[in-house]
């Protein structure tokens, strides 16, 4: 942990970075609390995020998610609260988007070569064959028993939900400490709470989809999640022009935007819908975000920036 700013009075800013969730995770805390308290808070936040990773990783054969899809079809498998809630939320989004967004799109992700574990670099190969026609409707969620039944062999990808959920749980952990402000940043899924050491709202840059070192837009925000999905993040190693955001109806990569940003009270929601927005015709994307209560920003392939009507208040200069 690094105290990275000079101390003024007794309010300090603490920064900690770790590797988790396939990315570099950063927690930044502003407060007058002791070093031990800050460290405890950051450790708990990180532990929460690691718990989500252990439950939801598609690349780890021992993750709960992997064990679920390897369980015999038709059997009822009891799962952890994290995996159950992540699946439940993903299926609700799938239902709402009429199947455009679908957590069972993982089999096609494997075909496009998204198989590498981010830590070990090892490729994950599956002995089981997923049914080509499988959709989220083949997942039966038993809320009373916190259990899941698969009705077809399928593979699951919670990439658009799990990272956001991890951020939300970390936020919940940090909130209990009463800091003046904090930031949780898991590789593009960001939550900012309270204020900076100077008592101001946080500045969040929306990355320029082409000039990666620059921000295409700068926001001043407090107590919201800001999640950006971009087609530039993970191009397919196998198919030219393909990338990691797939339309489950067409099984093809989405086109029309370079990036979509969603802003709202929860990272899980902003994460899922910043991905889902890609899966609609470009003219509908911002409307989709507004209909579920999010604000948003899209950057088209010719770098044209469009905003939802409520974005004005977040814009910085």
């Amino acid at each position, binding site marked *: 942990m690094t105290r990275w700013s000079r101390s003024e009075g007794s309010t300090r800013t603490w920064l900690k970075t770790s590797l988790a969730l396939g990315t570099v995770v950063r927690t930044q805390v502003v407060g007058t609390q002791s070093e031990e308290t800050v460290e405890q808070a950051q450790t708990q936040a990180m532990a929460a995020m690691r718990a989500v990773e*252990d439950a939801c990783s598609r690349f780890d054969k021992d993750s709960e998610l992997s064990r679920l899809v390897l369980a015999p079809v038709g059997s009822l498998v009891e799962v952890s609260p994290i995996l159950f809630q992540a699946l439940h939320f993903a299926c609700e989004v799938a239902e*709402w988007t009429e199947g455009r967004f679908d957590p069972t799109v993982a089999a096609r992700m494997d075909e496009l070569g998204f198989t590498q574990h981010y830590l*070990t670099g090892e490729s994950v190969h599956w002995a089981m064959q997923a049914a080509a026609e499988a959709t989220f409707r083949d997942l039966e969620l038993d809320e009373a028993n916190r259990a899941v039944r698969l009705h077809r062999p399928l593979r699951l990808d919670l990439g658009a939900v799990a990272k956001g959920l991890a951020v939300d749980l970390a936020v919940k952990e940090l909130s209990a400490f009463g800091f003046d402000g904090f930031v949780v940043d898991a590789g593009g899924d960001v939550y900012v709470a309270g204020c900076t050491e100077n008592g101001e709202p946080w500045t969040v840059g929306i990355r320029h989809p082409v000039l990666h070192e620059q921000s295409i837009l700068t926001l001043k925000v407090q107590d919201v999640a800001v999640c950006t999905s971009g087609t530039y993040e993970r191009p397919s190693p196998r198919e030219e022009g393909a990338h990691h955001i797939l339309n489950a109806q067409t099984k093809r990569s989405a086109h029309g935007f370079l990036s979509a940003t969603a802003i709202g*009270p929860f990272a899980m929601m902003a994460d899922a819908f910043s991905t889902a927005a890609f899966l609609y015709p470009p003219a509908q994307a911002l409307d989709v975000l507004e209909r579920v209560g999010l604000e948003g920003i899209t950057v088209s392939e010719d770098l044209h920036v469009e905003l939802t009507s409520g974005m004005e208040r977040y814009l910085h200069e």
Partner: protein
Amino acid sequence: MAGKMSPKFVALCTLAIGAIYTTGYSITSTSSTALATTQQGLPNAPTGSSAVAAANGSAGSGQSASKPANSSASTANKANTASTGKTNKSSSTTHPAASTQTTTKSTSTASTTSKPAASTSSISTTSKPAAPKVNTNKYLDGNYNGSASNQIGGVSLAVSIHNGKIANVQITACDTHYPQSYIDPVLPDYVVANQTTQIPVVSGATMSTADFYYALVQALSQAQNPNYKG
């Protein structure tokens, strides 16, 4: 957006986070089980099963440890590292079980991270077995140095072992072509948090990572405890 906006997903998120938070989640420190092989048996946990028991004990406000127990069991193959079940945020802001994962930059704080105030209510009910007298920790306490180099330069580091655990890893010199910030503090923190030499490769700093790895292995080889049975 007024008028047609649906609050459905905000409500769903609230419910989901609340359900996870109140039911508790099982934490294993193996962020990747591919890395798990070298981190068997954290030295301070007397046995794997009692580590799980302690975690369950801290999880419930009363004796309702059944939910965490289930989730611990489902990850039993990993549970001998650091397992934490938890619920109930109301009474305290610190969770004793979570301190098994604490990362610290300085050895002096390592011993102070488990909060006695918070643990009185929960740990005392779990009747921890007394630790065995023979030191079977994987590493012997002390400070150890290691260094490694390759065509891009070298890395030197100092490792301190406290209570048999890797308490601190300090990069003491880094003259690689790439900035030290590529691997510091990410790699030292990772080693302390996961008690492992199986470190991830930092994207864009593969050679620096290799130097760090060999320096770490060299330092820890001097710290090996001959009585360690793992």
